[in-house]
């Protein structure tokens, strides 16, 4: 990668254990299978509204998902299917949410862009660029005040680094020395515009880290070993009271920005180069080369496929949400009544 080679080479971290590697692979394979199905359902008109796939970016969510402890918090964006699954949220309610069914994770009230599962400490997917960085700080602040050994991880895209909330959030996290890890998934594109055309520095996150007194950390976001290592070290640092980290993970989305966008605005050779670096087959090859039994990998792949099939069935079988939900949960009494 040009951009990676431009930056000082970090020493390769030690490879994770075989068990961790298998978990990383399983996690990526599940995400991939899930999102391919979501795309099919979108084309069939069964996923209404919009959906933003993370196809190609799985290694980031997987690396963190495996490194996180159950008590840690995740905040992510509208492109959050992967991060949600990575926290162990079951597939069926996620699929059902995309389809606007009663079984949905939020019974259809949030939709694809707002996946949230508080029991899994998946604290929400946010659709206004930048806002959730400030909210994630609040969870980390709360952990600190409560003296709880929890860390908050907050994912966002390259384009997000140019909005005001990014700046406010990073500065506050640094000043308050919060236990938080900010993860910028630099997939080189905002919606249809390249990040390089609208950003004053080459590395939108790493290039800004010193403005918050932080070390620039640039990693290969398509390498699950690298994302896991970066996650483990940043989480440890945060848990030990070392304050925030800002990690820029270089990656690429295989498809378009959202819905049925074919992503045709991107140069063919750029797309081809990144497809060749698909995080899943490359990781599979690495595991096989390292002596992992291919049968085990095949079983992982088959299990993921079965899980997706089952989730799809369950979601399809679910009815549309109860219409009474329109008037529920505006307020904590369960209702929507603004008058008395």
């Amino acid at each position, binding site marked *: 990668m040009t951009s990676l080679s431009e930056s000082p080479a970090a020493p390769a971290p030690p490879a994770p254990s075989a068990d961790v590697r298998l978990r990383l692979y399983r996690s990526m394979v599940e995400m991939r299978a899930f999102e391919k199905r979501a795309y099919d359902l979108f084309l069939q008109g069964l996923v*209404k*509204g*919009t959906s933003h796939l993370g196809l190609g970016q799985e290694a980031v969510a997987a690396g963190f998902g495996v490194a996180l402890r159950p008590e840690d918090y995740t905040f992510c964006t509208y492109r959050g299917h992967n991060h949600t699954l990575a926290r162990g949220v079951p597939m069926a309610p996620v699929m059902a949410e995309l389809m*606007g*069914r009663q079984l*949905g994770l939020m*019974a*259809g*009230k*949030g*939709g*694809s*862009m*707002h996946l949230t599962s508080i029991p899994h400490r998946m604290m929400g997917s*946010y*659709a*206004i*660029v*930048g*806002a959730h960085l400030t909210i994630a700080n609040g969870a980390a602040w709360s952990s600190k005040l409560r003296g709880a050994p929890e860390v908050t991880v907050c994912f966002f895209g390259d*384009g*997000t680094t*140019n*909005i*005001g*909330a990014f700046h406010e959030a990073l500065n506050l996290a640094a000043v308050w020395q919060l236990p938080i890890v900010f993860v910028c998934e630099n997939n080189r594109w*905002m*919606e*249809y*515009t390249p990040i390089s*055309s*609208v*950003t004053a520095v080459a590395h939108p996150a790493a290039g800004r880290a010193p403005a918050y007194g932080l070390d620039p950390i640039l990693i290969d976001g398509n390498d699950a070993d690298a994302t896991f290592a970066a996650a483990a070290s940043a989480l440890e640092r945060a848990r030990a009271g070392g304050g925030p980290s800002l990690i820029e993970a270089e990656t690429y989305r295989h498809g378009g920005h959202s819905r049925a966008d074919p992503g045709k*605005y991107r140069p063919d050779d750029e797309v081809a180069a990144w497809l060749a670096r698909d995080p899943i087959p490359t990781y599979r090859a690495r595991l096989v080369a390292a002596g992992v039994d291919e049968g085990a990998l095949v079983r992982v792949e088959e299990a993921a496929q079965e899980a997706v099939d089952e989730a799809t069935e369950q979601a399809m079988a679910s009815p*549309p*949400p109860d*219409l009474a*939900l*329109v*008037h529920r949960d*505006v307020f904590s009494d369960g209702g*929507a009544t*603004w008058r008395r």
Partner: protein
Amino acid sequence: MAEMTYRDAVAYGIAQEMARDPSVVFLGEDIGSAGGVFKATVGLQERFGKGRVVDTPISEQAILGAAMGAAMTGLRPIAEIMFSDFFAVCWDIVANEIAKARYMTNGQVALPLVIRSGNGGGARFGAQHSQSVENWAMAIPGLKVVAPSTPSDVVGLLAAAVRDPDPVLFFEQKSLYATKGDVPDGELVDELGKAAVVRHGPAATVVALAAMVPRALAAADELAREGIEVTVIDLRSLVPLDVTTVATSVAATGHLVTVEENPRLCGWGAEVASIVAEENLFDLDGPIVRVTTPHVPLPAADALEDAALPNVARIVEGVRRSLA
């Protein structure tokens, strides 16, 4: 006369103004090479160049600040805020800066600028991408607020907005982008602040805006089938507000029903209703009924969203309630 979509009318209208006046510039996210996320600005960058049609970072405050500063110094910018929900991230520039500059400087500053934005629900995008926020703008002194319901109004009102010496917020209803209508040939320039009476009838006055206009007309059709003929007014502009057209109609019908997509509290419907309750109370023969989205954030699922937004049945029922 050409038939075109509401979506295409946007680019057509912007092009009309950019071709006419070299001081008109256009900026926003993904508006240029991509032609806009709603494909409403296709072809403009090719035609007018990257200097005048500019893709920006995701920096809404910087976008509107740039528009304001440029308007203060000789340009007539059109800025796009992709979804009107995103006004919340740059509301300071709109409400505290753009709206107040002329007044605070005792008339020294003129701000001939337009801010276009995709407004409203119906696309199952969920609560952060579906709001109708024209009432946020109406509540701020110093802004003009326009919301067309047809392709020809898009062109004519956009031209009027661009030529207006004051800042205009121009709400394009997302659910109308795919609708079609005739646009007259030649230069089209409308006037801000004139409502359109789009259907005449003596039984009641139904006032609607943007996507609620076709729904109000459909409700009028349904009522007509049982012999109730209502007047339907398309407000088209909230500031200036055509109180005269509404009041004249209410004087004739004795009944007022407002139909708005925004949530219940403090919308333009409340404003129109309370103007009539203050100035024309004794013209009324029945309660003023407001049909709105209930006071809830919009849900994402299609079934839920459809249940939340005002529909023909609720408008019909609203008219009946006023007549009862």
